[in-house]
């Protein structure tokens, strides 16, 4: 299915958010996620089903002021 990950279209299998992260090459331990603008806790990723057109944000630490 086609979804948007960090603003880019991706073709993924899913079905869960955890699966999508692995399919996109993310290390689950060091990123935080949001689905369609809502935070998804690390422990809920495997149980969160992804649907076509979903928007996923995957972020990690960076320098900040």
């Amino acid at each position, binding site marked *: 299915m086609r979804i948007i*990950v*960090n*603003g880019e279209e991706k073709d993924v299998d899913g079905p869960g958010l955890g699966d999508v992260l692995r399919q*996109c*090459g*993310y*290390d689950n331990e*060091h*990123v*935080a*996620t*949001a689905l369609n*603008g*809502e*935070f998804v*806790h*690390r422990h809920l990723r495997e149980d969160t089903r992804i649907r076509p057109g979903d928007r996923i*944000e*995957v*972020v*990690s*630490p*960076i*320098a*900040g*002021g």
Partner: protein
Amino acid sequence: MVEFYGKTVSNPLLLGTARYPSPAIMAEAVRASAAEIVTVSLRREAGGSSAGQKFWQLIRSLDVAVLPNTAGCHSAREAVTTAHMAREIFQTDWIKLEVIGHQDTLQPDVFGLVEAARILVEDGFRVFPYTTEDLVVAERLLHGGCEVLMPWGSPIGTGRGINNEYGLRSLRTHFDTVPIVVDAGIGLPSHAARAMEIGCDAVLLNTAVARAADPVAMAQAFCEAVAAGKKAWEAGPMEPSGFAHPSTTDAGRGQFV
């Protein structure tokens, strides 16, 4: 000593970690500043990258508390989601809450700020709100559960110093037990010293150190400046006068004409 949500820090200088020439210079500047709290952020990461993890390991090696920000958020909803992501990654309930309202000045959207602060306090966050010097907004933030105020000195990254000293003094007078951190716009150690001289509890800055020709030396200069300013406030500055007063007594002055 200043206390933020039960944590006591002895150095009133909080330092940002962005815009340094290199991660190594950033780390050295943090050490030179003696800052006990540094700010960090979150950004999109590409699959397969370990850049975020490496940065986080470097910060952890500095043995400082982290204050994650919601930089770049333009709505309460964005800021709330970002805060939750930051809490999970950085393992802290502290959040420097920024809701930006104006693209040119990066002025806080104080309406969105108050709304987001209230939601985040209910969600168990300890909120450091990046705000203006507006008294009414400060009242709303405190009423919403914030226990720290972070008014701007001047717009982020401008280095203009304190634009509205009267406003900051007014905040200090009205909220005399709330920790006040001047955040943004500090360009020189003298600006930071000034903030402390008028009774603010701490200063948060980034660009003034990171963009100095020698960030490490500048970090140390800021550390010394906030210490001097704090001591001056505690010592009780003299009141300015409109008239001259001789320092040296006239009594006993010789008559030569």
